[in-house]
């Protein structure tokens, strides 16, 4: 995985205990978050955030009504 400048890789994931399926993260960053067909709850198949999606993933985290998105960078 190509590191960002300064060697920091941003990671993000969805806390499944907090997610209630509001689906706003997939609207903000549909390239990163996927929704379950069955209940619409979100997950991040790949926790490493590509540099070009960092801003979108941060917006998704800020807009999550349940604050279920964890960012580590």
């Amino acid at each position, binding site marked *: 995985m190509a590191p960002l400048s300064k060697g920091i890789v941003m990671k993000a994931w969805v806390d499944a205990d907090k997610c209630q399926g*509001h689906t706003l993260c997939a609207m903000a960053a549909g390239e990163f978050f996927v*929704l379950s*067909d069955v*209940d*619409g709850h979100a997950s991040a198949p790949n926790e490493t955030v590509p540099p070009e999606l960092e801003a979108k993933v941060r917006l998704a985290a*800020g807009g999550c*009504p*349940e604050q279920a998105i964890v960012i580590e960078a």
Partner: protein
Amino acid sequence: MTDTVPSRAEVHYDRHTPEYREQFEQVTADMQRCPVAWTETYGGHWVISDHKSVFDLARDPQLLSSDHDPHNERKGYKGISIPSISPTQTGILEMDPPDQKDYRALMNPYLSPAAVARWAPMVADITRACLDEKIESGSIDFVDDLANIVPAVMTMALMGLPLADWVIYCEPAHAVIYTPPDSADVPRVMEMYFGMVAKLHSELEAVRQRPRPGLVHALVTAEIAGATPTDELLAGMLSLLIGGGFDTTTSLTAKSLDWLSNNPGERARLAADLPGLINSATEEFLRFFTPAPGDGRTVTKDCEYAGQQLREGDRLWLSWAMANRDPEVFPEPNEVKLDRTNNRHSAFGLGVHRCIGSNVARAIYKTMLTQVLERMPDFVCDSEAAVHYPTVGVINGMQHLPATFTPGTRLGDGLDATIARWQQKCDDEQLANPVVATGA
């Protein structure tokens, strides 16, 4: 008052009055100075009005119960309406986990984003037909001729009920919401509502006799905690699906179209960049108008929160509407910003009871908004003739919203023919089946 009652912050708060609707922003600012407060109205209850407290409390179903137990089989709690109006339990909204979770799991495959996406062609066609009925005349009532119809037909489809029956449920479903609890019209409205519930009981039996796919079928074949639900419980669930499906999206549509008519510059900006703005604009209208302004709960154990002593059995109101105007979370909360970011609003509730129909609501709303902006871009609502719900205590909605626009041309057949065509398609293609996990 006895010495066992601790002193508590007290305010006067009555959300069923016309003054509350008219002075909502001022009342909200006043309430948020004391965001966890006791009010004497409706038998006495706590009112939670800031985002942080609403967020904390709504996500703690162990502390706050939604249970409605009219037959006193558990603790006799009164559910989510303040004052409590229904003599029966209103579906999953008046249940606690684990049963609530089991019912939700049963219904999710009909209401998930993937499930709802399958209905996009029907929603677009019904919307098209509603507009076609009015497009040549240059005048429309956005409630009666559009926003009452599309969500109702879609709700019928999801439930697996005859699409044309939307009209039977329409008036009772809306009137039971907008009639104030002290209105002289309550007996008539309740009679109409019980007629609707009786009709739903007969539909339960009809689907048992001749199974057809949809939410009704999922519920009549359900086994929850090893038992078959009673018909009273199932009818409550269906009433909830109808109430939630009919009135809320209608309200969002009416309120936001009225706003866009009054803000033509913002309307032009939205129409010019629908792909870029429709998601954020929809969330902003949800935040700003919050069609379902709050839910009641019952405190399950004595505890201290925000310096206040909550006691077991206390009633409590979580105000999604006031939390959505909290300046700590939403800068300039009383402004509509169509491109607002970090919009973590609670219009669909928070926690385990998040509106199960939220994906349906968004899909229908965006379709109606898009087609109106495309086909009636210069509409002007008649704000004088618009009829707002007299009380916004249950739903922040409108009964009528007449508007005029430059006439256009029809694109297809009328509403009745369109509904009949989609009924055939529902039957032939079993459209109301649940989505199946792909195992991807």
